[in-house]
C-alpha cells in the first residue's frame, strides 16, 4: 500500500494519474504481490539473453578488436623473403608495381640473449626506422605499451612477451650474441638499452615462429634501429597493397583480393628471381674475367721477378768475390809486414845490447880518453922520466912468468897465437925482449886483453905505485903507438918519444874523442831511428789490421746481406707464387661456382602466415559455435519457465478474470494485465541481461584467450542487432506464453470462471498396471508418481532445466578434467624422462665427447640419450601446423624416455627406419593417417618430405618423432642439440642444473615437472570459462527449480494445509512436495549426464587449441560432480522452500476451493 501510494504521488501529474488506471494499478500491484514470480521470469530472461548476447557478441568483438588493431597499426599485406636478399634496385622494382601502396624493406636477425640462470632466449631482431613510425602509412607499426621509442643507436624496444618479461624490462640492457658467427658481422652495436615495450600486429600470438639457431624457437622480438645493421642486402620486404585498403582483415573479400594479388606477385617473383640470377651470373662472370687478367699480369711479374733476382744476386756475388780477393792480397801483405816487423824487432832487440855496449864502450873510451887526456895534461916531464926510469929498472932482462899468470892466460877465452902461448907456457926463465916482441906481435886487442889480464893479477902490484897510473895509461892508450917493438930498449925508447910529445898525444886524443863522440851520437841516433821505424811500422800494421778486419766484416756482411736479399726475394717470389696459385685455384673455383650460382627463391607470406593471425579468429569462431548451442537451450528453458509461470498466474486469477469479464471489461484489457506483466518482466530481464552479457562475457572469454594472444583491450560496442533480436525473442516468448496461458480463461464465460475450477481429476498412471511395482510403493510414492504424470508440463520443464544444468556442468567439469588430466598423462605417463637439456649444436667432436662424459659421470643422472629437437612446420596439402621434431640417438631406447603408443589400440610403437611417428593432435589437424606423406620444414628454405609411419598418444604440443636413420635418409645426417635424461632423485633439479650449466656449451635445462607446472598455469585460464559455464548452469538450475517448486507450493497450498492438519511433520510435508521435483531432478540429471557426453565432446572439439589435445573420454568424477552439484542446487531450493512451507497456514484447509 505504501509503495503504491508513493508511486502515485511521485508521478503526480495529471497525465500520469490517468495513466494509472485501476487496471494498471492492478498490474503493478500484481507484480509487487508476486515479486518472486516476476523475478523468476526476469532472471531467466536475463540469464538467457545475457548468455546469448554475451557469447554471440564475443566473436564479432574479437574480430573487431583484432581488425581495428590491424588497421590502426597498418598490418602488412605481404612479406617477401628471398634466399639471396633484396638489393636496392629490386626494392625499387617492387615499389614500382602498380598495386603496391607502400614498401618497407627491412633486416632481420635471430640472436641470443641471456635470460639468467645460464639459459638463453632467441630474440628475433627487426630493423626499424624509428623516425618513420609517425608516418601514417608505416607498415606493421609497433604499438607502444610502455616507455618510449628509441632515439639513439644503442636503444631498442622489446615485445611485451611472457618469456623474457622477468629478465628484461624498461631500462635494462640486453646483450645480443651468436654462437656460430660473430655478431659484429651483422650488427655494429650489440648492446642495447630497452626503452620501451611494444606489441606488434605481426605477432598477436606468443608463438613467434621458428629459427635456425639454438633450439629453433623464437622467444621474443626486438626492434632495433635500422642503422645498426651491417647488411649488404635487405632480408625482408613488407608490402601493403592499394586494393586491400579498407577491407577488414577477416573479411572473405580480403582473402579473394589477396588471392589475386598473390597470383600476380608469384609471377613477379619468378621474373625477379630470373633477373637476379642473371645479374649475379654476369657480375660473377665479369669479376672472373677481371681476375683472369690480374692473374696473367701476376704470372708475368713473377717470372720477371725470378729473372731480376738471379741477375742481381750474380752481380752482387761477383763484386763481393773481387773484394775478397783484394782483401786476401792485403792480408798477405800484412802478414809479410808482420813478419818483417817481427824480424826487425828481433834484430833490433838482438843488436840493440851490442850496439849499446859498443856505444857505452865508446863512451867509456871517450871517458878514458878524456881521462887520459886529462891525465896527460897533468903529467910532467919528470913524471915521464920517472916512469921510464922506473920501468927500465923494474923490467928485468929475464923473467919467469909466474904460474898464476900462466893459468890466467890459458884460461882466458882468447885465441892466443901459438907462439905466444908456447912462450908463456915455457918453463923457466925467458928473455924479456922475447916476451915483449912476442907481446907486440899480438894484435892491438889481444895486447889490450893481455894487459887487462895483467892488471887483474897480483903481479901488477909489483909495479911501483907512483907509476901505476902511467902504466895503465900506457897500457891503454899507447899500445897503438907502441907497435913492432922488439926489445925493452925499443919499448922504452918508444915510450920516451911518445910521452915526450904529449901535446901531440893530447891533440891526437881530443881529435879521437871528438871523432868518437860524433860516432856515439850517431850510434844512438841510429838506434832510436831504428826503433822508431819499427814502432811506426807496427802502428801502420795495426791500422792496416783494422782496415782489414773492417774489410772482412764488410765482406761477411756483404755475403749475409746478399744471402738475405736472395732469401727474401725468393720468399717474396714464393709468396707471389702461392698467391698466384691460390688465385688460380680461386679462379677455377670461381669458374665452378659460376655454374653453382644459387637460383634465388622468393618466398611470399601473407597475413595468414603470421603466427596467431588465423588461429585467433579460429578460436573466436569456436566461441561462436558454442554460443549457438548454449543460448538456444537457455531460451528454450526460459520459454518453458514463462509458460508455466504465466499459466499458474492466470489460474490463480481465474476468479478475478471472471469478475472483470462480468464487469464488462473486454478480453484485450483483461489480457493486457498478463501481457504487460510478462513483457515488463522480460524487457527488464533483457535489458539487465544484455547489459551484463555484452560487457562481462566477451571480456571474460577474451581475457582467457589473452593468455595466448597479445592484443589491445577488447572493444565492446553495443550490438544493436543482437540486442534487438534477443529482446524481441524474449518478449515474444513471454508474451506468447502469457497469451496462451490466459487464452482459455478468456474464452470461458464469467459464470464458469466465478465457479471454482473443478479439480483436475486423478488419473491412473501406466505404472499401476505393473502391479508388482505399484503395490510395493508406499501411497506417498504413489501420490508422487500420480502428480508427476498429472503436471507433465512442469515435470518436463524441470527435466529440461535440470538436464541442461547437469549437461552444462558435466561439460564444465569434463572440460576441466580433460584439460587438467592431460598434464599428468603428458608429464608422468608419456614424457617419462626427467629433464631435457639443450646444448650448442655447432660444438666440435671433442666438446661433445666431454659433454657425454660429463653426463655419464654425473651421479644425479641415471641414464641419458642424445636427441635432436627442433621447432619445425609440418605441412601437407590440407594445412600447415607447427611442431617439434625429435630425433633420438637410439630409437630402441626412446621408449625408456618417451612412451610412444597408440591410444586407440593401446599398442607400443617403435621408431621405424623410414618415415616418422606423429603425435595424435597434429595428425588430426593435418588429417593424415598412417602411410600418407607430410612435409617437414626446418626453416623457410630447408624442408624434406617423409611418410607417416605411426600416430602416438600425446596431449601437449605437437611432435614428430623420427629415427636417425629415417632422418638421414629423408634429409641429412643428424646433428644432436639436446639430451634427455633420467635422474636418481627428480627433486634435485636445482643441483643438477647448477652442475650441468657449468659447461658453457649447455644452453638450457628444463624439467618435465616444471613443464607440467607451466602448462597447468596456462590451461588454468580455461578454468574461467569452465567457471562461467558452471555458474550459468547453476543459475539456470536454481531459477528453474525454484520457480517450479514455488508454483507447486502455491498451487497446492490447500493440499499442503490439509496434510498438515492430518498431522504431517514439516519434513514429511516437505518430502511430499519435494519428492516430485526430486524425481524430476533425478530424471533431469540422468538425462543431463547422457546429454552432457556428446555436448562435452562437441565443446572440446571446438575449444581445443592447436598445441593441445584434451583428454578424450569421460571421467566418472565429472559425472559425480555434475550430478552432486545439480542436486546441491536442488537441495538449496528445497531449503529455501522449506521455510515457505512452514509458513503455509493450516487455516487454508478450511477455505473453500478456489
Amino acid at each position, binding site marked *: 500500500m505504501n509503495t503504491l501510494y508513493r508511486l502515485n504521488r511521485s508521478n503526480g501529474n495529471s497525465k500520469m494519474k490517468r495513466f494509472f488506471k485501476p487496471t494498471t494499478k492492478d498490474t503493478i500491484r500484481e507484480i509487487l504481490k508476486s515479486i518472486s514470480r516476476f523475478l523468476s521470469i526476469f532472471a531467466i530472461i536475463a540469464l538467457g539473453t545475457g548468455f546469448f548476447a554475451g557469447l554471440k557478441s564475443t566473436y564479432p568483438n574479437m574480430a573487431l578488436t583484432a581488425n581495428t588493431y590491424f588497421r590502426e597499426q597498418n598490418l602488412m599485406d605481404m612479406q617477401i623473403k628471398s634466399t639471396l636478399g633484396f638489393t636496392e634496385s629490386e626494392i625499387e622494382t617492387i615499389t614500382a608495381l602498380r598495386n603496391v601502396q607502400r614498401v618497407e624493406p627491412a633486416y632481420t636477425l635471430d640472436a641470443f640473449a641471456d635470460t639468467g640462470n645460464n639459459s638463453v632466449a632467441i630474440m628475433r631482431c627487426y630493423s626499424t626506422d624509428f623516425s618513420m613510425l609517425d608516418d601514417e602509412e608505416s607498415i606493421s607499426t609497433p604499438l607502444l605499451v610502455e616507455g618510449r621509442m628509441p632515439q639513439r643507436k644503442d636503444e631498442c624496444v622489446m615485445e611485451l612477451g611472457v618469456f623474457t618479461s622477468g629478465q628484461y624490462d624498461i631500462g635494462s640492457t640486453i646483450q645480443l650474441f651468436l654462437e656460430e658467427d660473430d655478431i659484429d658481422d651483422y650488427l655494429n652495436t650489440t648492446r642495447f638499452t630497452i626503452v620501451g615495450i611494444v606489441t606488434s600486429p605481426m605477432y598477436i600470438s606468443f608463438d613467434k615462429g621458428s629459427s635456425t639457431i639454438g633450439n629453433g624457437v623464437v622467444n621474443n622480438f626486438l626492434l632495433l634501429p635500422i642503422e645498426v645493421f651491417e647488411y649488404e642486402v635487405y632480408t625482408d620486404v613488407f608490402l601493403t597493397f592499394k586494393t586491400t585498403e579498407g577491407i577488414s582483415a577477416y573479411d572473405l573479400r580480403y582473402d579473394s583480393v589477396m588471392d589475386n594479388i598473390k597470383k600476380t606477385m608469384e609471377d613477379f617473383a619468378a621474373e625477379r628471381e630470373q633477373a637476379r640470377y642473371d645479374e649475379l651470373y654476369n657480375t660473377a662472370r665479369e669479376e672472373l674475367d677481371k681476375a683472369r687478367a690480374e692473374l696473367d699480369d701476376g704470372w708475368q711479374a713473377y717470372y720477371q721477378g725470378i729473372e731480376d733476382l738471379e741477375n742481381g744476386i750474380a752481380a752482387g756475388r761477383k763484386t763481393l768475390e773481387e773484394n775478397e780477393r783484394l782483401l786476401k792480397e792485403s792480408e798477405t801483405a800484412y802478414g809479410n809486414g808482420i813478419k818483417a816487423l817481427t824480424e826487425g824487432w828481433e834484430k833490433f832487440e838482438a843488436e840493440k845490447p851490442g850496439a849499446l855496449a859498443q856505444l857505452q864502450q865508446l863512451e867509456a873510451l871517450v871517458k878514458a880518453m878524456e881521462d887520459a887526456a886529462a891525465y896527460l895534461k897533468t903529467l910532467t916531464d919528470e913524471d915521464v922520466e920517472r916512469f921510464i926510469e922506473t920501468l927500465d929498472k923494474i923490467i928485468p932482462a929475464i923473467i919467469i912468468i909466474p904460474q898464476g899468470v900462466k893459468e890466467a892466460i890459458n884460461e882466458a877465452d882468447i885465441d892466443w897465437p901459438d907462439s905466444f902461448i908456447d912462450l908463456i907456457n915455457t918453463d923457466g926463465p925467458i928473455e924479456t925482449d922475447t916476451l915483449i916482441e912476442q907481446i907486440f906481435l899480438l894484435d892491438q886487442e889481444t895486447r889490450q886483453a893481455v894487459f887487462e889480464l895483467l892488471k887483474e893479477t897480483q903481479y901488477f902490484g909489483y909495479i911501483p905505485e907512483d907509476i901505476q897510473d902511467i902504466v895503465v895509461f900506457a897500457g891503454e892508450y899507447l899500445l897503438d903507438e907502441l907497435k913492432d917493438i922488439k926489445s925493452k930498449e925499443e919499448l922504452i925508447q918508444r915510450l920516451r918519444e911518445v910521452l915526450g910529445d904529449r901535446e901531440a898525444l893530447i891533440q891526437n886524443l881530443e881529435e879521437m874523442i871528438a871523432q868518437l863522440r860524433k860516432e856515439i851520437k850517431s850510434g844512438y841516433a841510429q838506434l832510436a831511428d831504428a826503433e822508431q821505424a819499427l814502432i811506426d811500422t807496427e802502428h801502420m800494421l795495426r791500422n792496416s789490421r783494422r782496415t782489414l778486419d773492417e774489410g772482412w766484416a764488410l765482406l761477411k756482411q756483404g755475403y749475409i746481406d746478399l744471402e738475405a736479399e736472395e732469401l727474401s726475394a725468393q720468399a717474396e717470389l714464393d709468396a707471389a707464387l702461392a698467391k698466384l696459385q691460390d688465385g688460380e685455384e680461386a679462379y677455377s673455383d670461381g669458374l665452378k661456382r659460376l655454374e653453382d650460382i644459387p637460383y634465388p627463391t622468393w618466398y611470399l607470406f601473407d597475413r595468414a602466415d603470421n603466427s596467431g593471425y588465423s588461429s585467433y579468429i579460429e578460436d573466436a569462431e569456436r566461441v561462436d559455435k558454442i554460443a549457438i548451442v548454449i543460448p538456444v537451450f537457455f531460451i528454450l528453458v526460459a520459454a518453458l519457465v514463462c509458460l508455466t509461470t504465466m499459466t499458474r498466474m492466470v489460474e490463480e486469477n481465474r476468479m478475478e478474470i471472471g469478475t472483470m469479464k462480468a464487469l464488462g471489461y473486454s478480453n484485450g484489457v483483461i489480457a493486457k494485465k498478463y501481457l504487460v506483466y510478462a513483457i515488463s518482466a522480460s524487457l527488464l530481464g533483457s535489458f539487465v541481461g544484455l547489459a551484463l552479457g555484452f560487457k562481462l562475457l566477451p571480456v571474460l572469454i577474451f581475457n582467457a584467450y589473452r593468455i595466448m594472444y597479445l592484443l589491445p583491450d577488447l572493444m565492446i560496442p553495443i550490438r544493436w542487432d543482437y540486442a534487438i533480436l534477443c529482446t524481441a525473442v524474449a518478449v515474444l516468448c513471454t508474451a506468447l506464453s502469457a497469451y496462451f496461458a490466459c487464452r482459455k480463461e478468456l474464452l470461458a464465460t464469467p459464470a464458469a470462471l466465478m465457479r471454482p475450477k*473443478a*479439480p*483436475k*481429476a*486423478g*488419473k491412473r498412471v501406466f505404472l499401476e498396471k505393473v502391479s508388482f511395482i505399484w503395490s510395493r510403493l*508406499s*501411497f*506417498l510414492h*504413489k*501420490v508422487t508418481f*500420480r*502428480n508427476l504424470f*498429472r503436471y507433465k508440463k512442469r515435470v518436463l520443464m524441470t527435466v529440461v532445466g535440470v538436464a541442461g544444468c547437469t549437461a552444462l556442468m558435466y561439460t564444465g567439469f569434463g572440460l576441466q578434467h580433460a584439460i587438467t588430466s592431460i598434464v599428468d598423462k603428458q608429464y608422468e605417463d608419456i614424457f617419462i624422462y626427467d629433464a631435457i637439456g639443450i646444448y650448442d649444436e655447432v660444438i666440435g667432436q671433442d666438446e661433445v665427447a666431454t659433454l657425454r662424459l660429463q653426463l655419464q659421470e654425473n651421479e644425479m643422472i641415471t641414464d641419458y640419450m642424445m636427441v635432436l629437437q627442433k621447432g619445425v612446420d609440418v605441412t601437407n596439402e590440407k594445412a600447415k601446423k607447427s611442431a617439434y621434431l625429435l630425433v633420438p640417438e637410439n630409437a630402441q631406447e626412446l621408449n625408456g624416455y618417451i612412451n610412444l603408443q597408440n591410444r586407440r589400440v593401446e599398442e607400443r610403437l617403435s621408431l621405424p627406419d623410414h618415415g616418422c611417428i606423429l603425435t595424435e593432435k597434429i595428425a588430426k589437424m593435418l588429417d593424415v593417417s598412417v602411410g600418407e606423406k607430410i612435409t617437414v620444414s626446418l626453416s623457410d628454405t630447408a624442408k624434406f618430405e617423409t611418410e607417416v609411419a605411426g600416430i602416438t598418444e600425446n596431449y601437449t604440443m605437437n611432435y614428430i618423432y623420427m629415427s636417425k636413420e629415417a632422418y638421414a635418409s629423408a634429409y641429412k645426417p643428424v646433428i644432436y642439440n639436446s639430451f634427455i635424461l633420467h635422474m636418481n632423485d627428480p627433486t634435485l633439479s636445482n643441483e643438477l642444473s647448477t652442475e650441468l650449466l657449468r659447461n658453457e656449451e649447455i644452453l638450457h635445462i628444463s624439467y618435465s615437472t616444471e613443464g607440467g607446472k607451466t602448462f597447468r598455469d596456462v590451461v588454468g585460464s580455461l578454468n574461467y570459462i569452465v567457471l562461467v559455464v558452471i555458474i550459468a548452469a547453476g543459475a539456470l538450475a536454481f531459477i528453474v527449480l525454484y520457480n517450479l517448486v514455488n508454483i507447486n507450493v502455491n498451487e497446492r497450498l*490447500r*493440499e499442503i494445509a*490439509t*496434510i*498438515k*492438519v*492430518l*498431522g*504431517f*511433520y*514439516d519434513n*514429511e510435508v516437505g518430502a511430499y512436495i519435494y519428492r516430485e521435483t526430486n524425481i524430476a531432478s533425478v530424471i533431469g540429471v540422468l538425462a543431463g549426464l547422457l546429454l552432457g557426453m556428446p555436448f562435452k565432446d562437441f565443446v572440446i572439439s571446438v575449444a581445443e587449441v592447436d598445441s593441445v589435445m584434451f583428454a578424450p573420454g569421460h571421467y566418472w568424477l565429472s559425472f559425480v560432480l555434475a550430478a552432486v552439484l545439480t542436486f546441491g542446487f536442488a537441495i538449496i531450493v528445497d531449503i529455501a522452500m522449506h521455510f515457505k512451507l512452514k509458513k503455509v497456514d*493450516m*487455516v487454508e*484447509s*478450511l*477455505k*473453500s*476451493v478456489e
Partner: protein
Amino acid sequence: MFIRLENVCKHYQMGEVTITALDGVDFEIQKGEFAIIVGASGAGKTTVLNILGGMDTCDSGSVIIDGTDISRHNTRQLTSYRRYDIGFVFQFYNLMQNLTVRENVELATQISSDALDADSVIAMVGLSERIDNFPAQLSGGEQQRVSIARALAKRPKLLLCDEPTGALDYQTGKNILKLLQDTCRMHNMTVIVITHNQAITPMADKIITMRSGQVYSVVQNEHPVSIEQIEW
C-alpha cells in the same frame, strides 16, 4: 474430564486493531460425548476449533485434552497431537484428488501408529464398492464419507468436524450426521461438530453456544434424539 477449556483467550492483531476472537472460554466435554458448538459467523467457534485441533494456539488459559495441556505445546508437539489424537472432517472434504478412496484413507493410516485397516474403515462408512475410485468420481456425500473414514482410520481421541454438512444437500447431510452419531455411539468416540445450524443441536449430548468470543450457554442434553427424527 476428557476435554476442558479454562479461560481461553485469543487475540488477533490486524494492523493497529486488536481483534479479540476468544474472550475467556470455559467448557468441558466428557469422553464419548457428541458435542455441538454452535454460533453465528464471528462468534469464535472456528477459533475454538483451530485451538482444539492443534492448528492454532491460545494466548492465555489452558486446553486440557485427556489430561494434557496442549496450550503449552510447541509446533512439533502440536503436529504429533494432530497426528495421533485428532481426526478432522473438513467442510470441503479436502481429499487428495490424485488419490483413490483407499489411498486417501491410507494417507492417514500411513502416518498413524495404531491405525485401523483402511479397507474396513471404508466398509464402515459404506464405500467398499468405490474403494478404487478417485474423489472426482464420487458425489459430495461420498467424498465426505471418505473424509470421515480418513479421520477415523487414525483412531483419534477426538473427531473434529467443521461444518461437515455445509457443502451437502439436506438428505446427504443427514446421512453424514448419522454416520457421525453412529460412530460416536458405536466406538465411544468423542465427536465435536462445529456448525451454525441450530436445528441439529438436539442430536448432541452437549450443546455449546458461542456468542462474541464467549460461551453463551452449555446445555447438557440428557436425551439426545436420533438425527432421523430431526427435521429442518
